[in-house]
């Protein structure tokens, strides 16, 4: 990568004997929006705090703008940070909160006021400069926190689950707002979340973390459609897993229950009879035959849930149950539980999962 701006090199972090982050490598481009996505306790916050300087890595280093900042104190790194708990200074007004970093940096008063005004406009809270944090809603407080973090034009913006304390509606509108502001200012951003929808909708790239490791780094499209590991496949989106045995490795045939299913690729390195797991997204499976979806399997419909525009059907194939989505069609009644059914899918959409 040519224009790497933030670089995390072989970072390893242990608290006592508990390893929390290991072998972490990441290059972030100037202006890029990268999310850390993963389950609770996987080390997202710890990795973010290492970038911020609140924790020192046990080994490895962090570079910002080509400079090694691993041993720099947080107040020397020129970063902006937004916390889940807002963390506005209760004794200061909105304007004073936003201007805090500028004042610390010794900016002249007139210039500071202008900058605070700009930031208030950016977060659409022009009228609120004189209010105190307790007079604001959660969403407004978080916008002020965002403005405060960005007022000093930091090199990197770090957000630790900034939306998770907000209710669902505010969360969606604020994530769009954050992304728009981030793009407008072109600020390099790391966003921590355990919400896959947030990560998929906002990010240029996602780092899926598990047990302190970066399991996969990729665009939302890659993460969702080409999960590199079983964990990523299972964690991001709904995934149907079919357990089978290799029937013919060369031809790519897998036996699931009593049926042979084509995976469309040679299963190199596998032997016949070896157990193997196939994974399929619900949207990659059709009920009944469909053009372009050459592989088929047969089963019994277990459950039909009407979700409005889509109908989710659960079909039992031997011991496994797969979910698939069909669009609601007012002209034809939905399938009925208990009926026999066939499913079809394209061999290319099948992921092979490591055991």
């Amino acid at each position: 990568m040519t224009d790497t701006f933030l670089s995390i090199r072989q970072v390893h972090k242990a608290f006592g004997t508990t390893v929390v982050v290991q072998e972490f490598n990441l290059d972030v481009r100037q202006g890029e929006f990268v999310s850390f996505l993963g389950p609770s306790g996987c080390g997202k916050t710890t990795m973010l705090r290492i970038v911020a300087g609140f924790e020192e890595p046990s080994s490895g280093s962090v570079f910002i703008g080509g400079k090694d900042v691993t041993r720099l104190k947080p107040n020397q790194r020129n970063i902006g940070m937004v916390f889940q708990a807002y963390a506005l200074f209760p004794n200061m007004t909105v304007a004073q909160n936003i201007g805090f970093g500028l004042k610390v940096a010794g900016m002249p008063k007139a210039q500071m006021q202008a900058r605070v005004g700009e930031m208030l406009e950016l977060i659409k809270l022009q009228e609120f400069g004189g209010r105190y944090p307790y007079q604001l809603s959660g969403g407004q407080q978080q916008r002020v926190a965002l403005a405060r973090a960005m007022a000093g034009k930091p090199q990197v913006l770090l957000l630790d689950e900034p939306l998770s304390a907000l209710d669902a509606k505010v969360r969606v509108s604020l994530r769009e707002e954050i992304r728009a502001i981030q793009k407008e200012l072109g600020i390099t951003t790391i966003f921590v979340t355990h919400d896959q929808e947030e990560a998929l909708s906002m990010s240029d790239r996602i780092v899926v973390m598990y047990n302190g490791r970066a399991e996969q780094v990729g665009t939302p499209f890659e993460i969702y459609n080409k999960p590199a590991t079983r964990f990523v496949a299972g964690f991001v989106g709904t995934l149907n897993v079919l357990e089978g045995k290799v029937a013919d490795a060369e031809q790519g045939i897998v036996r699931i229950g009593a049926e042979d299913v084509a995976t469309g690729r040679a299963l190199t390195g596998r032997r016949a009879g070896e157990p193997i797991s196939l994974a399929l997204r619900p949207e990659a499976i059709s009920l009944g035959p469909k053009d372009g979806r050459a592989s088929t399997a047969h089963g019994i419909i277990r459950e039909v849930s009407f979700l409005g525009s889509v109908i989710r059907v659960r079909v039992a194939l031997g011991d496994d149950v797969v979910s698939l989505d069909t669009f609601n069609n007012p002209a034809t009644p939905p399938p009925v539980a208990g009926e026999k059914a066939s499913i079809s899918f394209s061999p290319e959409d099948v992921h092979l999962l490591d055991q």
Partner: protein
Amino acid sequence: MTVNRFWSWIFLVLGVLYFALPLVGTFEFSMKMRRGVYSLDAYEAVIFDPRFQETFTYSVMMALATIVVGVLLVVPTAYWVRLKLPAWRPVLEFVTLLPLVIPPIVIVFGYIRLYNTSSWLPLTGTAMGTNILLMFGYVVLALPYMYRAVDTGLRAIDVRTLTEAAQSLGAGWATIMWRVILPNVLVAVLSGAFLTFAIVIGEFVMAALLNRPAFGPYLQLIGANRAYEPAALAVIAFGITWGCMALIQVVSRFAPRPPAQPH
């Protein structure tokens, strides 16, 4: 319900009488200096007594010095322990409680032993040195109240996240203490300060044993030798204490309100 309320009122009235009667009695007595009529003669006599003015001024100065030193000692300590050494909080709490358990007379004898004229730090050799010693004694006496007030104030804010937010905005420790932590615990600090003031103004044992011209020993002296003036002084001293309590109530209205926290 009504029975309950009836008894509550009875106890309330009894409580008020228990506290108020002696005060009212003292107040009434303090105005009887002139035969046959109520007058403020006793108050006049007290207030214009040069020794009253001297000792009172001395004690006020001591109280202010005690407050400044106490705040400088307690606020950074309580903050640091909350931030970096939370496991040590029980220890600190215990240490700050000790002055309530150890009688001041024991403390002051210890001081005299440690800092007498033939010791390694002969503080009692000079008036200034003794003043300093007395002031530190007062800091110790006020420690339980000051520490608890400040610690309660710190509990109301998210010390760690606010500190980190300020750090990420480029602030160093001095800025964080002065602009973020202190303003948010100011009300707590002030209530600690008023309590300290009330304690120092009335303190007798330490001042007497260190032989300093403080208000407490003066109270005792007058009390032993006069009839009406001690009553007037007692009322004045009460007035000061209550004034401090009222001020605590007033300033707590101006506390910066912590915003609604996410849950």
